[in-house]
């Protein structure tokens, strides 16, 4: 859990449509002021406003105190897009639909929205449909030739792709006997490169 922290936090910035709910006691003014909506001059946000909020905030406000917000599914997980994905998953540009499509969809499931089951099913089917191409691409061609394909993958698929590529590259280096050779670690090489850039920058100032 802790190790994944860096990756997980990045994606949680997804926006979620929200609508504030009535409290059953009637007039219920929220003091959610200028933090959330910079555009309104009014310090309070009234009942019934629609806002875009980050996923972490929406999740928290939706769960504990149900009287604060209600949530709608984001656009890319709704019926329209679900049908597109069901039709042919492998041609869809998932990176455009949100670079963290799978992870965010998984997190949405916790919110218990009415169409959660459909969303989850769609995620699974999309992945199943695209997996074959990813595997093929990563094992048989180099990253540079496949930029078109890679650009259409979302973050988790890209990680998978890179893992496949690493396998391919290691195999190639084994074939060419390069794996026998002891070499400078990539860390040191990167650090050397940065260090070398330093002096030239200073001299140009």
């Amino acid at each position: 859990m802790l190790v994944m922290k860096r990756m997980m936090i990045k994606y949680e910035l997804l926006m979620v449509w929200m609508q504030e709910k009535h409290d059953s006691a009637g007039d219920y003014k929220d003091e959610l002021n200028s933090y959330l909506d910079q555009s309104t001059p009014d310090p309070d946000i009234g009942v019934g406003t629609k806002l875009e909020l980050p996923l972490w905030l929406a999740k928290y406000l939706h769960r504990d105190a149900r009287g604060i917000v209600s949530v709608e599914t984001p656009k890319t997980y709704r019926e329209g897009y679900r049908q597109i994905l069901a039709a042919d998953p492998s041609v869809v540009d998932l990176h455009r639909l949100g670079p963290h499509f799978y992870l965010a969809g998984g997190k949405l499931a916790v919110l218990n929205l009415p169409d959660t089951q459909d969303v989850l099913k769609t995620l699974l089917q999309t992945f199943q449909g695209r997996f074959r191409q990813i595997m093929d691409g990563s094992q048989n061609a180099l990253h540079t030739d496949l930029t078109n394909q890679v650009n259409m993958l979302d973050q988790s698929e890209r990680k998978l792709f890179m893992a496949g590529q690493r396998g391919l590259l290691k195999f190639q280096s084994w074939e060419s006997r390069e794996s026998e050779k002891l070499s400078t670690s990539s860390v040191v090489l990167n650090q050397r490169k940065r260090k070398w850039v330093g002096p030239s920058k200073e001299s140009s100032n």
Partner: protein
Amino acid sequence: MLAEKALDLVRELQRSLDGTLPPYNEDKIRQVLEEMQTLFDQNKDKAQFAAEGQTHLLSAIQLRHAAIRRNKRCLLAYLYNRLDQIKKMRWEYSSVLPSDVKYNMCEQEVQWFNQYNRLLANYMRTLGDNGGLDLTQDMKPPKALYVLVRCLVDHGEFETQDGTTILLKKNSQHYLMRAECENLIRQGILEHIVQ
């Protein structure tokens, strides 16, 4: 927007190239902590009223609390991943770090690194037969006992196990025992030559 700065910290780490540690962003961290403190103080003031029955303040309090938790999580992720990076560096650089890498670490991180070194050394001493096994050696399975190396930079004198001193000048070739020069090869001072 709430918790934006904390997210910046995490993004900064993601952007850094594999293996290089960006400088410890003390400023940003202090700002995030200040933000957390402000939110907490605001909450504390309002909490009193809320307890007396004004329920409409509850949502604002929840919001601020969520923001505080978010900031905390981002901070922890930042710190934890930095330490992870530093841990990996021990296995790349050996127990002494080059000074420009050390420059990017804060005081506590340097201390943590030293303690990790000590821990690792103690552990390695308990393995194996003759007083310990060096785990940072032989990262790839060895093929031969001696290796042919070429020197890439001037490194001065180097004393081998049997006492002979060798002068490591640029482009000079030597036939050395694998165990000794493995460290120098990893650091980029020597280059392994394969036929």
